[in-house]
C-alpha cells in the first residue's frame, strides 16, 4: 500500500516538474510583471525568423523583430509611412542627383561597444549588394555605383543614374558593425535593444541597450513568442501569456476580444495584397483580354467577405492606399460575368479552357483557390488546384517560372515597380510600363515620380497584368494596459521601443 502511495507521489512530482519546465520556456506576461518602464512586453507572432540576418533569408520575422529595434538604418520608415533621418543626421544631394553625401549622427555606439563610423555604413550597404546577398531589396539598390567614406563621419554614395527612392530604400539597409562575425545567429546593431536570447521554435528576447544614443525605450525589454498556429496564438493572448498579437489572421477570433474591456482592437492600414498572379508569358494568359475576363469573372467582394467578414478592402490594382501614388481603380475590375464571357469569346476561348492554379498550402490561399475555381466554372474555365508548400512555390513559381497561374500574398509597400521588370516571376512585359517605372526612379521631384507611377499603375490595371483580389486588413489586438504600439506594421516592421504597459 505504502509503496503504491510512493509511486503515485513520484508520478505527481514528475508531473509538477514537467509543468514547471513547460512554463519556464514561456515567461508569463501581464499580471506578474511590474508596471511602468520596467515591464517586459510579451509579443505574440506567427513569424519566427529563419535566421537573424535579413540578407541571408531571415524572412519577415527578422524584419519584425529587428528593424528599428536592434538594427537601425540611415533612415527610418515610420509606422505612418514617412521617411525620417535616423543614423544620418543630414544629407545633401548633388545637383545632378548622382551623389548623395550623408553626415552621420555622432556618439552612436554598437551593442558591442564600438563607435559607429562611416566604414560601417559602406560595409553595410556593400553587403546588401554582394553577390551572395538574398535581400529582396537588392535590385532596388543596383543603381549604387560606389560607396566611400571620406572621413569617419561622412559617407558618400555615387549612383549610375538618378534614384529618387534611394533614401526610402536605405531605410531597409541595416547598419551593422563591420567587424561583426556570423550575423545569422548573433547581432550587433545600434538600436535601442540588444539581442537577449533566441530559443529556436519558442522565443526571442530583446533587452534595452544602456549605451543607446537616443531616448530609452518605454519598456524594460521585449520577448517575441512564436506560434505556428493562429488559434494557439489567440489563446495565449486570452490567458495573458502574451500582451499583444502583431497581426490577426482570422476575423473569427476577434469575437473573443470585442466587447471585452481587457483588450483593445486596432485596425490600421496594411500593404498586403492577395494576388491571382498569371504567368503573363504563357498562353492563354499572354492575352490581356483573357486576363481581364478571368478578373471580371471573380467576385472579389464576396471572397473578401468570406475570408475577412467585413474587414479589409478591395483594390483595383497593385498600389495600396498608403503608397503616395495610390488611386482608386476598383472601377477597372468590376465583377461582370457576362462581360467575362464576351471577352473570352473575343479572345477565341468561347468554350473556356483549363489551367492549373499553384496554391500555397497556408491560409487564405486554399480557400481563395476553391472560391476562384467555382467562379471560373461559371464562365467555362476549369481550374485544377495544385497545393504546394512555400518552398515549392519559391522554386517552382518564383525561380523556375514553371506555372500557369498562382495565388500569392504580396506584403511590401511601393512594390508596383515590379511590373516594370519583365524578368520578374509573373513576366509582365510592357515597354511602356518599364519605361515609366524607370523614368519615375530617375525623376527629379516626388510629384513627377508620383504622376509616372500612377500612369503605370493604371496601365497594368487596364491590362489586368495580375488579378488583385483584395487588400488585407491590419488588425492588432492588445491588452488594454498597453499603449504606444504600431498599428500599421508597414512591411512587417514592429517598432517596440514606444510600447508602454500600465
Amino acid at each position, binding site marked *: 500500500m505504502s509503496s503504491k502511495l510512493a509511486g503515485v507521489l513520484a508520478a505527481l512530482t514528475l508531473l509538477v516538474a514537467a509543468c514547471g519546465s513547460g512554463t519556464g520556456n514561456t515567461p508569463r506576461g501581464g499580471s506578474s510583471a511590474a508596471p511602468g518602464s520596467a515591464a517586459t512586453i510579451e509579443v505574440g507572432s506567427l513569424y519566427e525568423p529563419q535566421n537573424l540576418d535579413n540578407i541571408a533569408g531571415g524572412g519577415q520575422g527578422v524584419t519584425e523583430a529587428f528593424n528599428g529595434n536592434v538594427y537601425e538604418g540611415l533612415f527610418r520608415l515610420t509606422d505612418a509611412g514617412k521617411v525620417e533621418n535616423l543614423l544620418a543626421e543630414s544629407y545633401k544631394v548633388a545637383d545632378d542627383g548622382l551623389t548623395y553625401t550623408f553626415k552621420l549622427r555622432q556618439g552612436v555606439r554598437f551593442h558591442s561597444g564600438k563607435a559607429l563610423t562611416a566604414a560601417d555604413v559602406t560595409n553595410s550597404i556593400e553587403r546588401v549588394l554582394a553577390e551572395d546577398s538574398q535581400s529582396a531589396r537588392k535590385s532596388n539598390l543596383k543603381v549604387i555605383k560606389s560607396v566611400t567614406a571620406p572621413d569617419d563621419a561622412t559617407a558618400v554614395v555615387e549612383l549610375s543614374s538618378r534614384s529618387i527612392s534611394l533614401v526610402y530604400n536605405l531605410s531597409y539597409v541595416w547598419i551593422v558593425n563591420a567587424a561583426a562575425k556570423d550575423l545569422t545567429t548573433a547581432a550587433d546593431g545600434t538600436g535601442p535593444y540588444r539581442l537577449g536570447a533566441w530559443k529556436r521554435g519558442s522565443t526571442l528576447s530583446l533587452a534595452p541597450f544602456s549605451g543607446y544614443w537616443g531616448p530609452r525605450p518605454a519598456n524594460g525589454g521585449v520577448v517575441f513568442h512564436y506560434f505556428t498556429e493562429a488559434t494557439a496564438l489567440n489563446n495565449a493572448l486570452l490567458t495573458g501569456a502574451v500582451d499583444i498579437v502583431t497581426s490577426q489572421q482570422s476575423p473569427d*477570433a476577434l469575437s473573443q476580444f470585442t466587447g471585452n474591456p481587457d483588450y483593445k482592437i486596432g485596425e490600421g492600414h496594411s500593404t498586403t495584397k492577395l494576388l491571382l498572379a498569371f504567368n503573363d508569358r504563357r498562353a492563354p494568359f499572354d492575352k490581356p483580354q483573357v486576363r481581364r475576363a478571368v478578373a471580371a469573372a471573380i467576385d472579389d467582394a464576396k471572397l473578401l467577405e468570406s475570408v475577412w467578414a467585413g474587414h479589409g478592402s478591395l483594390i483595383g490594382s497593385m498600389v495600396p492606399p498608403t503608397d503616395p501614388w495610390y488611386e482608386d481603380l476598383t472601377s477597372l475590375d468590376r465583377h461582370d460575368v457576362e462581360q467575362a464571357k464576351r471577352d473570352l469569346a473575343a479572345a477565341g476561348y468561347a468554350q473556356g479552357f483549363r489551367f492549373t492554379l499553384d496554391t500555397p498550402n497556408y491560409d487564405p490561399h486554399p*480557400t481563395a483557390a*476553391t472560391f476562384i475555381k467555382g467562379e471560373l466554372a461559371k464562365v467555362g474555365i476549369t481550374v485544377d488546384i*495544385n497545393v504546394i508548400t512555400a518552398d515549392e512555390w519559391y522554386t517552382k513559381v518564383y525561380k523556375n517560372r514553371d506555372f500557369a497561374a498562382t495565388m500569392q500574398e504580396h506584403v511590401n509597400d511601393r512594390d508596383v515597380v515590379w511590373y516594370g521588370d519583365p524578368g520578374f516571376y509573373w513576366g509582365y512585359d510592357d515597354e511602356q510600363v518599364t519605361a515609366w517605372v524607370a523614368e519615375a526612379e530617375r525623376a527629379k521631384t516626388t510629384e513627377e515620380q508620383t504622376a509616372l507611377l500612377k500612369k503605370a499603375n493604371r496601365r497594368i490595371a487596364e491590362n489586368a497584368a495580375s488579378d488583385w483580389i483584395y487588400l488585407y486588413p491590419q488588425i492588432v489586438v492588445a491588452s488594454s494596459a498597453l499603449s504606444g504600439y504600431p498599428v500599421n506594421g508597414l512591411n512587417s516592421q514592429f517598432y517596440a521601443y514606444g510600447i508602454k504597459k500600465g
Partner: protein
Amino acid sequence: MRGRLTFAAGCALVGLVLAVALVSLVWLPYDPADTTGGRLAPPGGAHLLGTDKLGRDLLTQLMAGARTALIAGIGSVLVGGLLGVTGGLLAGFATRWLDDALSAALDIVIAFPTLLLAMLVAAAREASLGSVVLAIGLGMSAIVARLTRVLVKRVLAQDYITAARTSGTSWPRIVAEHVLPNIWPMLLVNLALQLGLAVLAEAALSYLGLGPPPPNASWGRLLQEAQATVLTAPTGAIAPGVLLVVLVVGTNLVADGLRDLADPTRRRSR
C-alpha cells in the same frame, strides 16, 4: 452472442456512412461548389447544418466527404492487404536468410510512422486521393505482412502440413487448401481494424493539406477549415468529427465482432 451484437452494431454504423456515401452519388442537397449560402450561416431551414466560410452547404460537404473517407479507407486496405498478404506469404515460406532479410525490412518500415511515410509519398507525387491511398496502403502493408508471416509460420509447423508434404502436395496447393483457410479469419479482423486507422490517416493528411486537393470534400480538411471558426460556428468542427468517430468506431466494432465470431475457442467459451 456478444460477438454477434458487436458485429451488428459495427455494421450498422459503417452501413450508415456507406449509405450516405452512396446517396451522395445520386443526390446532394446543394451543388458542392454552390457558394450562395452566406458566410457561416447557422444550422437551420435552408441549410440543415449551416454553411462554411465560403457559403457552401456543410451537409453537402460532409456527404461528399463520406465518399472520400470510404474510398481512402477501402482503397488503402486493398493495397495494403494485397501487398501485405503476398509479402507475408513469401516471408513465411522463404528460406532462413530471405525470411530474415524480409523481416528486417518490415521492421524498418513499421518503425516509420505511417503518417510520415504518407507525407513522403504525398510530397514525392502530387497531393491527390491516389497518393493518399498508395501512401497509407504502403504503410499498412508492412503491418499486414508481419502478421501474415507469423500466422503462416504457425500453420506450417502443424503436423498436417508435414503430412501433406510427404504425400507430395505441391506448395501452391498447400497455400490454397491449408494455409489461407486457416489464417484468413485473423487477417480479416486485422484488415477491418486497419480500415478504421486508414480513415483516420486520410483525415490527418487532409488536415495537413496533403490529401486530395480542394475542392474535393474531405472531413480532415473540413476540420482544418473550421478550426479558426470553432467558437463562432462550432457545427463546422463538430459534424465532421462526429462522422469520423462513427466510421472508426463502426469499423472497430466490426473487427471485434468478426474476431469473436471467427475464433472457435472464444465461441466455445460462451
